[in-house]
């Protein structure tokens, strides 16, 4: 037996609000062999991070390692004192945190931070450590490995920072590496690069690792074995293949089911077709910065056209910073557009909040991404839901109270919730309240900004289910913003892909998984991890190693925004002329020089096989 880690009977307790000690992890048993990657998977609050931290002999403030044994590379982590633990951490056990941006010191050079643990533990002299760091940078596929260490954290991207953190963890060749949700905060296209780098390093170095995640598809790429956690208890512990193909525990099955949400029938097409479109967006542009006094102008949105029919759901996807939230805010009137027009039922909408009537406000409701901050923490749920009723419909007293309870029932929350404050509800419950507040207005259009991205898979799937149901019941339209193509695919009739503020593609849902794609959509879709082993390696084979060479890009305005990352770019065309918007046979449109047929031919061998659960 070459067990590196052995955990038995681990119990961690925490104090709750009533100052009682409750178990947050009970009786955890597992072991990890040398060179093995074990995944801890579960929703938030399941104790996965707590267990990972216990492997370093650490408990978060308010928590206590109450019992059991944890042995890592022959050291018994729970009985050692702080000094001895400090000697082990960073040398024998290393930790990669979720947010690299928050873990790096912004005022120190990256190299100094990467080799810090090697110097603290005096494993090697500075020169050797720096040489090793450069070697690790190379292995992690970081650009310019020789010099990247001289930069500061804000000078590299989020995905690079995450890889630098891996280098920091691996510099001392630890016996165990703990990765705590290392890719959760990244875009899918970045996540895939980071995963690839992690996998390569782990394989080449034969590292033993614990990978903490809520995302089964990601874990499927990385782990040899998976431990499924819920409410602090291990529900299932098995090889990755077994967990994915033949899950034994019902909870594992529900997790798997939630990952591939059932696609729902599209909105009633006949009804959609005949009515006037509910909302029309024409040539919309938005900028930040005034441009006066030398202030730079940042174009966030450019020339966006969008039609939202009544009762339909339009999905907007794109990576962070592509302008999707700004689009929703512009429609809601919170950001004044710099160009273009909004039409609600054929009537022009005022560009800002000031010019809109109360009825227009009522008809367009905005559901914010983060229910934690979107609900006033000082108001009771009844007040939060009651306000729009009073404001838009003049409801008072018992009528309002009755309607609040109806709304709670609509989003499947018990009536007792009404007296609570948002802080007393769980994330999923808060998101339901958030949705109920929008519904209280009886709107025609609900703008949903990443409503499920802060939630656990199972809870998020339940919210999507609810939204689809409500659409049927109330005939509302949604504009659904997400970075997660699976979410969008599950609920939307039409999908719009934004890249750098431009609408690069629009397609009907039925056509979603068939080429032609805009090259960016293709990258986006093929970057979503599939729920089976070996997917990462397959993708690696598909992605061209180098992009076609380009001469210096012209300064002409309106060039393809994706030109810097496009695998299908053509020198002399893409860097000379603005791409045309082409209508496709499948009813969609793309912003690209390539024709329908060309793209189909280029992309067909790379046919997508996502979506099915292995």
């Amino acid at each position, binding site marked *: 037996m070459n067990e590196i880690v052995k955990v038995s009977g681990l119990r961690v307790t925490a104090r709750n609000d009533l100052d009682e000690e409750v178990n947050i992890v009970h009786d955890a048993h597992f072991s990890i062999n040398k060179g093995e990657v074990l995944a801890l998977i579960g929703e938030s609050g399941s104790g996965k991070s707590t267990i990972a931290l216990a492997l370093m002999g650490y408990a978060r403030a308010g928590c206590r390692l109450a019992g059991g044994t944890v042995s890592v590379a022959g050291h018994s982590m729970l009985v050692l004192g702080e000094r001895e633990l400090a000697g082990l951490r960073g040398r024998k056990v290393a930790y990669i945190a979720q947010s690299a941006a928050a873990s790096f010191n912004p005022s120190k050079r990256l190299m100094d931070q990467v080799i810090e643990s090697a110097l603290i533990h005096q494993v090697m002299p500075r020169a050797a450590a720096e040489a090793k760091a450069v070697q690790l940078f190379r292995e992690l596929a970081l650009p310019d490995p020789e010099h990247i260490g001289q930069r500061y954290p804000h000078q590299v991207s989020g995905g690079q920072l995450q890889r630098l953190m891996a280098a920091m963890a691996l510099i001392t060749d630890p016996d165990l590496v703990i990765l705590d949700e290392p890719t959760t905060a990244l875009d899918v296209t970045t996540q895939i690069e980071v995963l690839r780098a992690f996998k390569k390093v782990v394989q080449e170095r034969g590292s033993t690792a614990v990978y903490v995640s809520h995302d089964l598809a990601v874990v499927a790429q990385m782990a040899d074995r998976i431990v499924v956690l819920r409410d602090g208890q291990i529900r299932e512990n098995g090889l990755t293949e077994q967990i994915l193909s033949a899950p034994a525990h019902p909870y594992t099955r529900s997790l798997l089911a939630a990952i591939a949400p059932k696609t729902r029938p599209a909105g009633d097409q006949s009804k959609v077709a005949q009515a006037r479109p509910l909302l029309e967006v024409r040539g919309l542009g938005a900028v930040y910065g005034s441009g006066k006094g030398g202030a730079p102008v940042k174009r966030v949105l450019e020339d966006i056209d969008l039609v939202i029919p009544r009762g339909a759901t339009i999905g907007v996807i794109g990576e962070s910073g592509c302008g999707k939230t700004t689009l929703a805010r512009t429609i809601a009137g919170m950001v004044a557009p710099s160009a273009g027009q909004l039409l609600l039922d054929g009537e022009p909408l005022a560009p800002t909040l000031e010019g809109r009537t109360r009825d227009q406000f009522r008809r367009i409701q905005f559901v914010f991404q983060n229910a934690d901050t979107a609900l006033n923490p000082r108001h009771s749920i009844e007040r939060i839901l009651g306000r729009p009723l009073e404001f838009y419909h003049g409801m008072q007293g018992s009528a309002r109270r009755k309607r609040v309870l109806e709304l709670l029932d609509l989003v*499947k*929350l018990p009536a007792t919730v009404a007296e609570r404050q948002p802080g007393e509800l769980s994330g999923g419950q808060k998101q339901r309240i958030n949705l109920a507040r929008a519904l209280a207005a009886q709107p025609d259009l609900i703008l949903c900004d990443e409503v499920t991205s802060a939630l656990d898979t199972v809870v998020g799937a339940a919210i999507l289910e609810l939204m689809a149901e409500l659409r049927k019941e109330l005939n509302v339209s949604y504009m659904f913003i997400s970075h997660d193509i699976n979410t969008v695919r599950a609920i939307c009739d039409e999908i719009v892909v934004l890249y750098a503020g431009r609408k690069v593609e629009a397609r009907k849902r039925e056509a979603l998984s068939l080429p032609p794609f805009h090259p960016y959509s293709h990258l986006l879709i093929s970057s979503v991890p599939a729920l089976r082993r070996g997917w990462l390696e397959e993708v690696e084979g598909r992605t061209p190693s180098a992009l076609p060479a380009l001469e210096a890009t012209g300064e002409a305005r309106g060039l393809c925004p994706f030109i810097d990352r496009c695998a299908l770019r053509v020198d002399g065309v893409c860097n000379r002329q603005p791409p045309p918007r082409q209508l496709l046979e499948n009813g969609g449109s793309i912003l690209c020089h390539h024709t329908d047929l060309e793209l189909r031919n280029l992309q067909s061998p790379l046919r997508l096989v996502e979506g099915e659960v292995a």
Partner: protein
Amino acid sequence: MRSSAPPSVVPPEAPRKPRRHLSVAGLAGAVVVGFWILMALIGPWLAPDDIGSMNGDAVFAPISAHYPLGADFLGRDMLSRILQGAPYTVGVALAAVLVASVGGTALALFAAARGGWFDNVVSRIVDVQLSIPTKLLALIMVAAFGSAVPVLILTVGIGYMPGAFRIARSLAVNVQAMEYVQAARARGEGLGYITFHEMLPNMLRPVLADFGLRFLFIVLLLSGLSFLGLGVQPPAADWGSLVRENIIGLSEGAPAVIVPAIAIATLTIAVNMMIDGFAGRKRRGGE
């Protein structure tokens, strides 16, 4: 469909703590503050001695049956002096701090919520005012308008408003960026609702803490003014001037110095304890 809602969405009802109660310290503070407010109202009538009853033999007299809190530098009964000073200290300071904090906070809320030129103009005016020392401002005001009590209240209140404005404005700017405020805007709510119903409750805790501190400063400023002969005019005296006028008794260990100081201390500490009690009422966080 309705029955198929995932049961995990609703956690079992936890036993709940009563929401509105003061901590022991907060309660104690409230009792002391209540006591002093009562004394400010009825104290002058309770005072055993008249304001002018001097006794040359009892200068800096120690605590005795006749002088329960000793006597001052003119041999006046300290208990009476303190009771007669209570309306000035409690009343003037409280009124002034209300002017400063309420005025500053309200102005800050509107400035932050309105933004634009209104915010700019108000903020610059406040910056200018911040550059004038409060004591100097008070000096000029008293020289120009005399030292009647309303003038004192307004002078001190306006003198301390810029600080309250600055603190409240920075809080308001933070709160205003929260999504629930934006949600209210997107709902089409008016400025009044957004500021008083959405923003104010979420900045109350630091604003109240600032209120307590500001009260302390104002008591000190008032006693400073009295010392310069610009505040409450003798023979009437607020507690601050009582400390000042008896300061020579310190070397003799006379209670006349320490007693008004204790009165000031109990009042200011109690105000702060009470406010912490209100504001520190912990919300139950998390899930």
